[in-house]
């Protein structure tokens, strides 16, 4: 049975610059990458594919536009997960993809996945948007069961046992294949590929396809605003004793002690 790993081309939010005064968000300037939790999903796929005896393939539908820069970054992100031990990758890209909402993307991804895979692994949320909507929609589109927030996955014959972490309890569920499962950061420690593995990964199959939206989106982003957070950023100087005293004084003046 083959495994599909969903990898999103996410904005690197740590590097994203915003200007609080003008409200400008420098999206084009920010680099993109595979999300950290998608590396956990990749690690889990590499571990599970031995038990399931098939291949594990990364699937990326890029919504970053079709510029040369974004294309290069998308291929780099896929090389990164291939170097961790995936067998191949599919990159779907094209004009208009940036307007796609989760409804559109789920429909397009389902066409790529249906009849080819028995298990889909994804992150509980993407690095930049963190909605977790896509794997849920994909499961519904495919008509497969969906289990989110996995902290452990064990294969047992024709089903998997998934431990998942919810706010007030931990739950163990048994799910039949085919299924869609999203994982958390705590499920494993993603391996860091060696240089030779990265070199080898560049020779693994990376199948690039053109995107054309199968349906119209249900949601449009009207505006992106920059929240105003003003911090004083005062550095307290002095030795330990002095610093503690100065801090206490400052907090008293703020009226929070």
């Amino acid at each position, binding site marked *: 049975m083959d495994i599909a790993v969903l990898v999103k081309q996410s*904005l690197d*939010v*740590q590097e994203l610059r*915003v200007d609080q005064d003008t409200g400008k*968000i420098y999206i084009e300037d920010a680099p993109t990458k595979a999300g950290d939790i998608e590396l956990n999903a990749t690690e889990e796929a590499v571990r599970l594919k031995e038990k399931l005896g098939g291949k594990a393939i990364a699937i990326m539908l890029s919504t970053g536009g079709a510029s040369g820069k974004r294309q290069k970054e998308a291929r780099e992100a896929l090389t990164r997960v291939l170097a961790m031990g995936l067998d191949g990758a599919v990159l779907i890209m094209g004009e208009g993809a940036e307007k796609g909402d*989760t*409804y559109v993307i*789920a429909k397009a991804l389902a066409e790529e996945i249906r009849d080819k895979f028995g298990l889909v692994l994804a992150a*509980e949320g993407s*690095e*930049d*948007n*963190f*909605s*977790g*909507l896509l794997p849920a*929609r994909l*499961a*519904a589109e495919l008509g497969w*069961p*969906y*289990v*989110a*927030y996995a902290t452990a996955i064990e294969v047992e014959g024709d089903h998997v*046992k998934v431990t998942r*972490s*919810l*706010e007030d*309890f*931990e*739950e*163990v*569920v048994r*799910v039949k294949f085919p*299924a869609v499962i999203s994982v958390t*950061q705590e499920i494993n420690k993603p391996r860091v590929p060696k240089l030779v593995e990265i070199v080898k990964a560049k020779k693994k199959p990376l199948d690039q396809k053109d995107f054309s939206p199968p349906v119209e989106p*249900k*949601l*449009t*982003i*009207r505006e*992106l*605003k*920059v*929240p105003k*957070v003003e911090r*004083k*950023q005062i*550095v*307290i100087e002095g030795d*330990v*004793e002095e610093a*503690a*005293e100065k*801090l*206490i004084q400052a*907090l008293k003046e*703020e009226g*929070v*002690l």
Partner: protein
Amino acid sequence: MKVLAFSHSMDLALELVSAGRELGDVSLLVTSDQEGRINEVKGAKEVLLCKGLDSGDQEGLVELISGLASDYEVVLLASDRRGRELVGQVAHRLGASSAVDVSSLSVEDGKLVVERMTFGGKAIAVEEMSLPAVISVQKGKFKPPEEGEPSVREVSAPSIERRVEVIERKEKPKVGVPLDKAEIVVAVGRGFRKKEDLKLAYELADVLGGVVGATRPVAADLKWMEEEVWIGISGVRIAPKLLIVVGASGQQQFAAGIMDSKVVVAVNTDSKAPIFEQADYGVVMDLYEFLPVLTKKLKEIKGG
């Protein structure tokens, strides 16, 4: 607009009723395990009671809510983990638009407009949603209504084949003071070298009358806190009047959870740590040297 609401947590369900009233009449779905709290529901037009379904049955819920939803324009769910798990599935079954963790909702020219945090908290997205729409509402944004008795109507449970079977469920220890309601919070990060050392943070919190929270790795990965209470985009968002962040780098996903704090103090050995940009007062020092002294001095003042 007609609104259908449901949450696994009765407390969040009451917040959803309030959020839904911004749009129109609300019907609140109540499952068998929640029946005992039905009389707490105020302000909804009606309660839809399903005696044949437990809220632990996610597949049953997807089926039930998708079925009922044909009579409504908007479905509201909570932004806890199980609520968010339902949003995408229900929305897709209905061919509806979807958004999670929204902080406000309104109708403008017949369009549903919502706001939500994105880019790890660096931006707020204002989104226009087509109807029907399925939405999860941010926790703590809406106060439960106090008046208005709903009528009660029973609905029948769906009969479907379950593909997910719950084989074990373990309760987690309950949190003492909810972090999102605390006035003073000390947040600990991986700068602490071992679990025992968190004592330094608890002592500081004690003298201030505050509570201790953590970054995600400290709570979920190292499991140093007895409860799963981490602060951030995937955890709790806090709004204390004083927050002291100790030994945490201040990565964006953490920072998104502390934006509403009034005064932020950061203690970190690395003067370049991003947390200092998120702080009003920064102390570039070893927490092991600084915290004991700070706590001692605070004790002296508080002691009289």
